[in-house]
Structure formats: C-alpha cells, structure tokens
C-alpha cells in the first residue's frame, strides 16, 4: 500500500477544485494536490452554459444587495444570508480575476463584460461567454493551473475520508489507471466533487459521473449533510435525453408554449413569464404536461420556441443550444420549437458547511455543488452556481492554507485503506444476483416517480421503502472485471453504491419537511410554512447504517421572509 503525503488535497477538478488549487498554489508553498476521477477539463463545470451572476462596476442601478435579495428570495428564504452576502459581494472580484486570467467573456461594444437577464434576477447581471461559459472557465482555470505547476492526480477515485472525530487525517483513494487502494496522508482536504443529481439516473442533465462521491464519502464518515431534499429540476431538458438547454435560451427571449401554442407562463408568473425562477417554471411545465396540455403524440413535453429570435441571433448567442437540439433531438431551433421537459439538474443540498466552507471536522472543507453552505437554500438561481463554485473554491483554499500552515502532521491509520481493499474484493466476489445497470435504472425511476417535481407523503413513503429495498439488493451486485488497470466496471459499481447511500438522505428529510418551499413542492402541503419549517434539515448516517434527521436554524440578517411572487 503506497502512501502519499500532501499538506492539502483537493478532491475534484472542476471549477471549485481548480480555482481552489490555483489560489492555494499562488498563496502558499505547501504541498497541494488535486485529485480527480477524470481529467480536470472533463469536469461538469464545463457543461454550465448560461453564465455567472455578478454585479460589476458598470452594472447601472444594480447592487450586491439587490443580488443578495434576489438570491435569498429565489432560495425561498432558506439560504443563509451571511453566506449569500459574502458570495454576492465577491462577485465582481472573481469575475475580473478570471477575466484577467483569460476567460473570453462576451463583451459589449464598449469593451466591457456583457450581461444578460436570467431567471429570478431583478437586473441583467449574468456575465456570459456565448453559451459555453462554464466550458471557457474550466479550460482557463486548467491552463492557469498548468502555469502554476499544480500537482494532479488524474483518474483517482475517492473512497473514504479519514478523521479522528476532531480533525481530518487523510483520505483513501483508488488509482483508476494502475489499480490499487492508496492511503493519502494530508492535513487538509477540500471536497469539490460536484453534485449528485445522477440519483435521478434516467432523467438528468448531469454527466454520467455526477454521482456525489464526495458527499457520500462524507456521509459514510459521519459528517452531516444539509437540505438534501432540495433537488433542482431544470425546466428545459431535451425531451429525449434530459440534456440541458440553457436558461440563456429564455434569457435571450425564448417562449414556452403548450400544445395549444399558448405562452402558459402567464398563468403562473405573469410578470416574469419565462424568466421566473427554475422551480416555478419547472412546476408550470410539469403541471401543463400532467393536465394534458403537453405537446407531441404522448403529450409528454412542452415546446421551447426560439424561432422568432432569428438565425443570426441564435447562431451568435446560442450556438451550442442549436447544435444540441439538432444532434440529440433532431430539431433545428431556427425552424421549429425544441421539445423540452424538466430534468434533474442541481443538488442544492450537500455537505453541511459554514459560510467559509468549513465542516464540523477541522481541516475538512467543502466547496461547490457538493457543499451546502447554504447560498442556494431551497432553489438555486441560474447563474449562481458558477459564482458559488468560484467564490467558495477560493475561500476554502485560503482557509485550508491558513489551517494547514499551522496544523501538526497527521497520522492516519491504515485500517480504512484495508477496509476499502476488502470492500472492493468483496464486490468482485459477490454473488452477482443483481446487476448495477438494472438497480440504477430502478433507483432512478423510484426517485423520479416518488421524489420528482411534485411530491406527497404516501407516495414518498412508498418510495423510501423501495429505496431501502434497492439498497438491500445492492449488496448482491458484482464487479465482473477483476483486472486492476482501468477497471470501469468497478468504478461504475462504486458510483452506484454512492448514489444508493445518498438516496435515503434525500428521501428522509423530503418526507419530514411538511411544507412546499422552493424545489420541494408537496401536493399535500402546498404552502410554505415558516413557523415550522424555516430551518435546515440535517441528516447523518449512524454507525449502524440508519439515517438520523435533525434541524438547524437559518441565518437571517437583512431580508425577513415574505411571500414569493414573480
């Protein structure tokens, strides 16, 4: 068992991980490594299309306070306002920083960074680079990491987090390329492993690998997860595949129409129309479909109409959207509306972390989608995730540097690594009565059916039972590939087991939150209930494998809860 030794290990090479690595590299001589299960530029930050919100020096009439208010209102008042405040105030700083490093933001004729309107925002404050904002940010950050000679452990898979109940001591990981469990000793760990919307396997905008590996490892290590019941359904996923159509398509003036050609959003959000926040638009679309006003032979999708924008504007502002619609849906948006339906998109919940990204374990930080700071509360606004990723990538890096500078050497025991080795061996020797692909599909169906856009008690309880049954059956899945090198069969199984661990952590608080707030829409409790539920759910897994739910207050500073109308 090879032992590696670092001061800071950043797990995940997406926007948060790379920005953390960059800020760590530039601010310390400590040994920092980025560990990622893919190559950094494959990370799903690259799929973020629409843009990144920030109030810039030339945003006339706008202010970080207005941005904070929109964010808090968008979150249905569940976001922690001290954290939102930090994020919104740092907006301009991170935008200019990455622009100075080479991100090719789209520009106004006067050479300043252009901004477009986005859902739930009171000003056009979404900075963008055509419709590939995340892609350019990811590529630029990677370039800058190469420039700074950042150490990468590419294609390494996180297995476990080792801590002594007080501070973090190391991690264990599987070297995908060569095979083998490794014990990595480190003083600080930043988890930046992304979201877990792949729990909804069959209908999601997420990459194949967005399986919440860091979140699941944290859960297994006894760390609390927060607000896990909140999963964002993006209103516009391509009908056949769930692949994302950017909110920018509506930002640029796209219409949503039902089978009668009606712009139905006027009945749901008369003022903001198509640019209402995502939870509201997703529910509107789902309601239209459920009530028989969907388009197509089965009435199971809605039309996103861009035809009136004209070919030139579509090519200039939404080139990727056009390409994807043609390739994956067989529809050219210049000529025909795009068939879309809600798709599981973003995990608002995640590893419980404070406004600096710190978890209850010293030296362990979480940033980006795997974390729940919480800046998104019950519903994230479009364009706020790239901002969250950068702000918290940077903040956690500085926190980790400060901590690791002074922290004593750690001494992680090899027991965890031995356990993990055993676990992997057991997978290879299992009876194989169940197949990963089947169970994963079943889990996806259960999640979508019982914990989808609309939820209710009876159905969710049934759903939880089915999840627990799948969890039981998952003990019989087998890894058929017994080779060490590039064993994707093993990785697929480990990823699935992570999803299985996370599913109950979503289901349990979803059942207990007896109100509708943001993305958590209950038919049996259609109203928000501030008296009883203006609080974060916190879920932990106990030693015996059972899940324990508790609650924790929301930090409210400037904006008292009010009715959310658009």
């Amino acid at each position, binding site marked *: 068992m090879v032992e590696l030794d670092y001061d800071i290990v950043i797990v995940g090479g997406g926007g948060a991980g790379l920005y953390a690595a960059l800020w760590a590299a530039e601010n310390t001589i400590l040994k920092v490594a980025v560990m990622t299960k*893919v*190559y950094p*530029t*494959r*990370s*799903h930050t*690259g*799929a973020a299309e629409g843009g990144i919100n920030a109030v*810039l*020096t*030339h945003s006339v009439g706008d202010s970080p306070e207005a941005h904070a208010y929109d964010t808090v209102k968008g979150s249905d008042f569940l976001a922690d306002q001290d954290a939102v405040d930090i994020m919104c105030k740092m907006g301009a*700083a991170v935008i*200019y920083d990455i*622009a*100075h*490093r*080479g991100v*090719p*933001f*789209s*520009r*106004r*004729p*006067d*050479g*300043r960074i252009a901004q477009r309107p986005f859902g739930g925002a009171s000003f056009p404050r979404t900075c963008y680079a055509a419709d*590939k904002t995340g*892609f*350019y940010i990811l*590529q*630029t950050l990677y*370039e*800058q990491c*190469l*420039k700074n000679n950042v150490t990468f452990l*590419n294609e390494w898979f996180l297995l476990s987090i080792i801590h002594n109940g007080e501070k973090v001591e190391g991690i264990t990981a599987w070297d995908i390329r060569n095979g083998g469990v490794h014990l990595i000793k480190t003083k600080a760990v930043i988890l930046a492993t992304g979201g877990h919307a792949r729990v909804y396997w069959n209908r999601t905008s997420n*990459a*194949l*690998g967005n399986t919440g590996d860091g979140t699941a490892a944290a859960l297994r290590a006894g760390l609390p997860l927060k607000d896990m019941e909140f999963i964002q359904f993006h209103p516009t996923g391509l009908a056949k*595949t769930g*692949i*994302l159509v950017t909110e920018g398509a509506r930002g640029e003036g796209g219409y949503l129409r039902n089978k009668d050609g009606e712009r139905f959003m006027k009945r749901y959000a008369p003022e903001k129309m198509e640019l209402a926040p995502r939870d509201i638009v997703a529910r509107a679309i789902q309601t239209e479909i459920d009530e028989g006003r969907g388009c197509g032979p089965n009435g199971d999708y809605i039309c996103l109409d861009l035809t009136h924008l004209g070919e030139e504007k579509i090519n200039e502002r939404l080139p*990727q959207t056009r*390409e*994807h619609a043609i*390739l*994956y849906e067989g529809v050219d948006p210049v000529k025909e509306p795009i068939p879309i339906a809600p798709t599981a998109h973003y995990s608002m919940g995640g590893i419980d972390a404070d406004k600096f990204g710190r978890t209850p374990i010293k030296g362990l930080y979480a940033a980006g989608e795997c974390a729940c700071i919480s800046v998104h509360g019950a519903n994230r606004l479009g364009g706020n995730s790239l901002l969250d990723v950068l702000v918290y990538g940077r903040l956690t890096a500085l926190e980790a540097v400060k901590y690791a500078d002074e922290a004593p050497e750690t001494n992680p025991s090899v027991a965890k690594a031995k356990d993990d080795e055993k676990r992997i061996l057991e997978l290879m020797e299992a009876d194989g009565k169940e197949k*990963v*692909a089947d169970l994963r599909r079943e889990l996806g169906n259960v999640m979508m059916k019982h914990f989808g856009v609309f939820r209710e008690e009876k159905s969710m309880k049934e759903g939880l039972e089915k999840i627990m049954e799948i969890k039981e059956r998952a003990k019989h899945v087998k*890894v*058929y*590939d017994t*080779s*060490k*090198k*590039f*064993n*994707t*069969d093993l990785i*697929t199984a480990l990823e699935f087991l992570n999803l299985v661990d996370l599913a109950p952590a979503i289901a349990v608080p979803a059942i207990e939150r007896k109100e509708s707030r943001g993305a958590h829409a209950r038919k049996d409790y259609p109203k928000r209930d501030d008296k009883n539920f203006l609080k974060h759910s916190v879920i932990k897994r106990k030693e015996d494998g059972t899940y324990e739910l508790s609650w924790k207050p929301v930090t409210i500073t400037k904006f008292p809860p009010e009715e959310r109308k658009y």
Partner: protein
Amino acid sequence: METAVLQVFRYDPEKDQAPYYKEYEVPVEGTLLNALLYIKDNLDPTLAFRAFCRSEVCGSCSMKVNGKTKLACKTPMKELVETWKGKPLRIEPLNHMKVIKDLVVDIDKPIEKMKTLIPWLVPDPRVVPTDPMHESIIYPEEMEAYKDQIHCMLCFSCYSACEAVADNERYRGPFAFSKAYRFQVDRRDIETAKEKRIRYAISGGLWSCVQCQKCLYVCPKGVKPAEDIQNLRGQAVKKGFTDKPGAKKLKHFVDWIYATGQINRLYLPEEVYGNKEAREKLTKAYTEMGVEVWEVPKPTKGLMKFRDIYLEILSKEDKALDLDYSHVRKIDKMVSDIFKADICTIVDKAHEEGRSSRGLISKLKGLLGGQ
C-alpha cells in the same frame, strides 16, 4: 428494433498477449456513446472506455470508427450505419498514444507536450490591470482573432489523425499549436511570452507539419490547427526566426517570386538546406535529360508591374514584411550580372524587343492562387 454490429478493439495488457476484436450487437438508436453504454450495461461490463458529459463538451469519448476519428457522443448510430452500409463498424482507440485498456489511451504525453508551448495567458501589466477590481477592456472585434481556438476541448482527435506526430516524436501536435496560437493573437499577452512560444513552437516541430489538413477535418469543434500552424510560421519568420529549413523555404518562395516571378529550382537546395553542390549536379542532370536549364529566368516586360501586384497581395495578407529586400537586391544583381545590364534596363529592353509579358503575368497569378 434495428441493430448493428460493433467490432470493438479489446486489449488488457495484464491479461491479453495481443489485442483482439469482439463483436457486439447494439441497437441503432441515439449516438455511438449510447451503443457503448448499452454494451457496458447489458452485454459486457468489462469493456473500458472514457465518457462523461455525453453532450460534446468534455472531450472524453474520442475514438476511431473504421479508421475515422469520431467523438462517440456526437456520432449518431444511424449516420454510421448509413455511411458504412452493410459493413461492420470497427471501433478502435486513438492513434499515437499508448493503449491503457481497450479504448482508453494515455493522454498524459500530449498534455505534457502542450505544456511546453505556454498554453496560458501571460498578462501584460500594461494591458491587464493588476488591481483585481479593475476591468480590462476587450472589444468584441479583437476576440474574433481567437474565436475558433478557444473551442479546443482536448479530445486529441487531431493528435490521433496527425501525420507529423507519426513521423516526429518531438512534434507537439496540432491542438497544442492552436492552444498556443490563441494567446499569440491576444493583445493582453505579453510580448516576451509570445516570443518564447515561437521559440518553443519551432523546437516543438512547427516546421514539421506537412499541411495535410487532417486535423482541420477531424476536429469536432471547428478548430483549424493547420491554419494556426501556418500563422505561427508567419509569426516566426516575422520575428526573425529564419534559420529553420521551413522558414528558409518560405523566404525563398517569397523573395524569388518577387524578384523574378518564380521560384528557383537550382538555388532552392542551397538556400534552404545549405546544399552547395546541388546547383551543379542539378544543372548536369537537367542537361543530360534534355530539360532546359536557366540559372535565373530572363526578366520580361511587366515584371515591375507584377512586383507591384505581388506586393499588394502580400500586404493584404499582412505578409509584406516577409519580403527581404537585401535578398531581392542580391537576386537582382545576379540577374543584372548574367544579362549584363541593370534590372530596369533589361525589362525595358525586353519591352522594346516586343516580347509579350502577358504569359508571364498570368502564369505568376496562377502561382499565387489566381488572384
């Protein structure tokens, strides 16, 4: 349901003595990536390939289909079946990289190669403010210069298809030059970095590219490495990096065409490769073959006018500075010596003799792409 047969390259260096092909029957539905996932989920979980975003932004799933480089998530099965009617579809890993397992290749080497070309912005403090709260102004027009290069997602399709990579171990690869060129045309990048990039590009095989244009055709994102390489070469010459054969050849072409209207096959080996005997040997060989030989072509009427036209064309392409007038003067002198009069007189004389120059000019225009 319509199906197709994939013959998939399989190789596990731990177990297999040699690579082999395994056949799988897959539905003709969605993309090639869907087909591979179908195999993994339903037929054979041991098949190894890389895939992540499934929507052509991450660059993981490039591979070869019947020898052609494809991004699996961007390739509809229907299209493949239609293109290769009746033929089996052979799925193989990319070229020029070591196979780790099945369709997975080692991409560390091309990344390391790319790193040597400084593929990142080195900000010029006079253009990029050091104050983090100060915006740097960039006009939309300036971004046109690198609008294609920024789409590179490191899928290594071009690297796999490249002839020069096959021939030259040191060759950095098409994408690497495009990544470098993107910063060569960014006003914010400091001049010293631009100069270094050229230096490193030259030692990384800038002149080895044979302009086969394959990179340009296989790129799933519309990046045009072959063009970027040409532009980098132009920059190299402009910056005075003229000691490589490639640069010398370019110089020979530009100067001789300007001076005489055509390249000089007798002087080319000497001027480009320093081969001093070539001229004599070639003269002998041509004479023996009965081919007409001239040391320099006789200037004809209209040469001066041609020079004006040629210069105008070069200027339009921003290449006028590539002309080396001292070299041109030397050629002029050689012409004058051979024909025993200065170049203008010779031209005038040719004019007086009433020889048509039209033939020459149209020929030269042909040489310059018909302009």
